C-alpha cells in the first residue's frame, strides 16, 4: 500500500510539473504569464513564498517517509512496546525558530511589495479613470477628458494608470490577472489601484467578487496600445459626434429605431455618465458582445431580442421594448458601425 502511495505522489508531482511546463494558462489572462507591473511583482512574491514552502514540504515528507518505512509494526513483534518519549526541548526550539526565520524571509518582500503596489504618489500626474461596476458590466470615465466608455478600457503601455473605483449596486472586484491583482468596489467608498501594461495587447478582465446571477459573465477587456496610439484614440474619442449619420440606409433606419425604442434612455452614445446600460460610443470596435458572446450581427440580434438567454439577470431583460427581428437587424447595423477611432483592439495586437 505504501508503494501505491509513493507512486501516486510521483504521479501527482509529474502531473503538476507537466502542467507547469506545458502552459501557464491562456496568454493575457493567466497570472502566471504576467505582462504588467502589478502582476510581475505578485508573481515574484508567489515564487519566493512557493520556494520556501516547497522546502518545508520536502522536509516534512522526508521525515514522514522515514517514519512510515522504519516504524511500522513488525511481524513477530506485536507485543513490542516502544519507549514512551515525552518530548525533546532542543527539537521543539528548532522547529519553532527555523519556521520563524523562513517566515521572515517571506514577510520582508510581502511588506515591501504591498506598500509599493499601494503607492499613489504619482496619481496626480497620471491618467486617472473612474471605474464604476454595475450588474454586470463596467463603466470607465477618463477623468479630465470628455471620454466615457464601457467594457473596453484603453490604456497606454509603460505607464501607471490610476483607477478610482466604486460600484453602483453590489460589490464587484476588478481583476486583470495578467496585469495586476484585484481590488474590490464598494458602494460607499472609492478604492484606488493602478495598472500598468508593459506590452501592447488585449487583456482579459474579470469580476472577482460574487455579484449575482451573471457574475461569471462580467468579463471586460483592457486594451494596451502604444502611447502614440493612445493619444490618437483620446483625440478620436473626444471628437465623437453622437448624432453622426451612418452611411448605409439600414444603419440609418437602425439609428432611428434606436431612438424610437428609447434604447437611448439606458445606453448613451458619446461621453455620458454611467447609466442603466453600457455606453455604446465605440461599440463597433469591441471584440466581444456583453463581455462574453461573439461580436457579430447575428448574436447582436439575438441579444437585442432576448438578452436573458446570453446574460441571465441583466437589466435589459426587464426593459420594456418590442422590436421585430428585422428591426433588430437594423439596430445591429447601426451599432456595429459605431467605430469612432482607428485605434481598435487590433492596434494592440497587430503591431510588430
Amino acid at each position, binding site marked *: 500500500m505504501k508503494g501505491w502511495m509513493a507512486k501516486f505522489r510521483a504521479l501527482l508531482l509529474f502531473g*503538476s510539473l507537466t502542467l*507547469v511546463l506545458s502552459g*501557464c*494558462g*491562456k496568454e493575457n*489572462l*493567466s*497570472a*502566471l504569464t504576467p505582462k504588467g507591473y502589478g502582476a510581475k511583482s*505578485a508573481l515574484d512574491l508567489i515564487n519566493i*513564498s512557493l520556494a*520556501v*514552502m*516547497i522546502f518545508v*514540504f520536502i522536509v*516534512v515528507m522526508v521525515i*514522514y517517509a*522515514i517514519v512510515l518505512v522504519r*516504524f*511500522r509494526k513488525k511481524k513477530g513483534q506485536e507485543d*513490542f512496546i*516502544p519507549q*514512551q*518519549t*515525552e*518530548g*525533546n526541548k532542543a*527539537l*521543539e526550539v528548532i522547529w*519553532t525558530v527555523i519556521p520563524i526565520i523562513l*517566515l521572515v524571509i*517571506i*514577510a520582508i*518582500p*510581502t*511588506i515591501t*511589495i*504591498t*506598500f509599493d*503596489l*499601494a503607492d499613489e504618489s504619482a496619481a496626480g500626474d497620471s491618467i486617472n479613470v473612474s471605474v464604476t461596476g454595475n450588474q454586470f458590466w463596467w463603466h470607465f470615465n477618463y477623468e479630465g477628458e470628455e471620454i466615457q466608455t464601457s467594457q473596453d478600457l484603453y490604456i497606454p503601455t509603460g505607464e501607471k494608470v490610476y483607477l478610482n473605483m466604486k460600484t453602483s*449596486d453590489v460589490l464587484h472586484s476588478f*481583476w486583470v*490577472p495578467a496585469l495586476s*491583482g484585484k*481590488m474590490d468596489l*464598494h*458602494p*460607499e467608498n472609492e*478604492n484606488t489601484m493602478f495598472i500598468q501594461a508593459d506590452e501592447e495587447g488585449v487583456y482579459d478582465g474579470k469580476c*472577482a467578487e*460574487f455579484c*449575482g*446571477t*451573471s*457574475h*461569471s*459573465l462580467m*468579463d471586460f477587456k483592457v486594451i494596451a496600445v502604444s502611447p502614440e496610439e493612445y493619444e490618437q484614440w483620446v483625440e478620436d474619442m473626444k471628437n465623437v459626434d453622437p448624432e453622426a449619420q451612418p452611411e448605409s440606409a439600414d444603419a440609418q433606419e437602425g439609428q432611428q429605431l434606436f431612438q424610437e425604442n428609447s434604447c437611448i434612455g439606458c445606453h448613451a452614445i458619446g461621453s455620458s455618465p454611467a447609466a442603466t446600460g453600457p455606453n455604446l460610443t465605440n461599440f463597433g470596435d469591441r471584440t466581444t458582445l456583453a463581455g462574453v458572446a461573439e461580436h457579430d450581427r447575428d448574436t447582436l440580434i439575438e441579444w437585442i431580442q432576448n438578452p436573458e438567454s446570453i446574460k*441571465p439577470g441583466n437589466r435589459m431583460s426587464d426593459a420594456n421594448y418590442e422590436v421585430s427581428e428585422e428591426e433588430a437587424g437594423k439596430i445591429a447595423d447601426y451599432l456595429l458601425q459605431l467605430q469612432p477611432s482607428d485605434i481598435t483592439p487590433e492596434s494592440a495586437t497587430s503591431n510588430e
Partner: protein
Amino acid sequence: MSTATAQKRGFGAAIWDYLTTVDHKKIAHLYLVSGGLFFLIGGLEALLIRIQLIKPSNDFVSAGFYNELLTMHGTTMIFLAAMPLIFALLNAVVPLQIGARDVAFPFLNSLGFWLFLFGGIILNCGWFLGGAPDAGWTAYAPLSAVSPGHGVDFYVLGLQISGAGTLIGGINFLVTIINMRAPGMTYMRMPLFTWTAFVTSSLILFAFPALTVGLFLLMFDRLFGSGFFNASMGGNSVIWEHLFWIFGHPEVYILILPAFGVFSDVLSTFSKKRLFGYTAMVFATTLIGFLGFMVWAHHMFTTGLGPAANSIFAIATMAIAVPTGIKIFNWLFTLWGGSITINSAMLWALAFIPTFTIGGTTGVMLAAAAADYQYHDTYFVVAHFHYVIVGGVVFGLFCGIHYWWPKMFGKILNETLGKITFWTFFLGFHLTFFIQHFLGLMGMPRRYWTYLPNQELDTGNLISTIGAFLMAIGTIVFIINVIYTSVKGHKVSGDPWDGRTLEWSIPSPPPHYNFKQTPLVRGLDPLWIEKMEGRKGITPAEPLDDIHMPNPSILPFIMSLGLFIAGFGFIYQVDNLAFLWVVILGMGITLGAMFVRSIKDDLGHHIHKEDLEEGADQ
C-alpha cells in the same frame, strides 16, 4: 429503573426517548445522524456544481440555481455538517475522556442540538419555498441585503437559530471540562482531544456573537427596512465583512482544532506511544486559538484597508504557521520510534499530515498580501480551504468516527470497506482540488457558474469533476460500511484498540451513567499507566454509591420548535403582516417552555447502588 427501560420498546417509545434525551451519548447519535444527512445533501450540491463545470459554457443548471447551489453547499458543509459532526464527537467522547458521568448542562445540551436541527431545516426550506439563499455562504452585503425573494431570509433565520444552539453547546463544554473532571485529571493530564474541545468551545463563545450581530443587522435590513448596508441611507457594506470574518476566521479554527485533537489521540494510540511534546501541543493549540482572533482581515486584503493594515494582518497570519508547524513535527515525532499499526482510522490520520501540510503552506502563501491580490476569490483559494477543511476537518471526522465507532456503538467498522472508502476519497480529493490551485492562477475566479472555451481552463475542470465523483464513491462506500457493520458487525470489548485514555476503560457502548465509580486519574494516558502497572482497569476514586442523573425532558424540543415557527413568521411578515401572529405564536411557545422550565423543579433521579451491583452480575 435502567434495566426496566432497557427492555424491548416500541418504535414510538424509541423516538420519544431520543426527543427527550439529555444523555450526551444519545445526543451524539442525534448529531451524528443529522450532521451526516446534511453532509450528504452538501455533497450532492457539490456534485451538481462539479457537473456544471465539467466543460466550458455548460448549461446543466441555470445561473440562478447554480448560485443557490454554491451558497447552500458552503453554508451546509460548514454549519450543518462539519459543526454538528464535531459536536457528535465532542458529545460522544469528551465526558468519557475526563471521567464524567454527564456534561455540565444536560438540558442545554439537548436544547443546543434541537436548535441546530431546526435552524438547519429552516435553511433548507428555501429549496421548496421559492428559492434557496443565493448570496454565497459569506453573504456579502449589499448583495445579500438586496437579493430578491426570501432565499437569504432563510439563511439569516436558519443560521441565527442554529448559531444559538452552537453557542449553548460551546458554553456547555467549557463548563463541563472545567468543573466535571474526575479526581486527578488535572489540566495537563487531559487528552489532547479534550484540550482542543476546550479551546474550540472558547472560540465558539467569543466568535459566534459577532455572527449573531451581523445576522441581526442583515435581518433588520431585509425585513424591517433599516439601512446598515444601504449606501443610500449612509450604510456601510464593509461592516458586514468585518463582522462576518471576526466570526468566520475563528470558525475555521473551531472546525480544525478538534480534528487536530482526533489525530493526536489516534496517532498516539496506533503508534503505541505517548504524544510527543504534549506540553508544546497544548501550548500550540491555545496559541492558535488566540491568534485566530487577530487575523480576520486577511480575508479582506482586496477590500482596500490600505497597505499598513494589510501588512499587519499578513504578518499576524504568517505567525499562525509557527504553532501549526510545531504540531506537524510533534505528530511526526510521535510516530518516530513507534510501533505503527495501519488501519482505517490510522490511514486518515496518516493521510492528513501531507495533505494538511499542503493546505498550510498555501495558507502562508495566501498570507502574503500583495500575492493575495492575485489569489483572492479565485480557485486558488477554493483549493486552499478545501485542503484544510476537507484534508483537515473531514479527514479528522472520518478518522474520529472510525476510531470511536466501537465506543459509540460497540462494533468496529469493517476494515476492507474502510480502506476502500479511504483510498477512493483520498485520491478523489487530491484529483479534485490540487489542480484548482492552478486554475485559480490561470484566471478562474471562484463562484463562476461557467467559464468560456479557449481559456485553457477546460482540462483542469474536467479532472476536478472526475475527482469529485471518486469522493462521492468513497462516501457511498462509507454508508454501506455503516449499514453492513450494524447488521453483520461483531460486538467488541470496551478496549478494542489497546487504548490509552479513560473512554476505553468502560464497556462499549458505555452504560448511561458512564462510570460506575468515578475513576482516579494518575497521569497522562491514565488507562495506559494502569495497564503498564499490570492492572486491568482504572482505580476508582470513590466507593460504589447511588448515582445522580438528570431527567429527560421534551422542553428543549418545544423551545426550538417555537423559534422555528417564529422564524417563518419573521420571514413572511414582509408579505403579509398577519404573519406577525405566527411570530407571536412561536415566541410564545418558546417563552412558555422557558417559563415552565423555570418554575418546575427538575432535581433529576438516582440510580441505586443495588441496581448498579445487579448490573455488574449480568
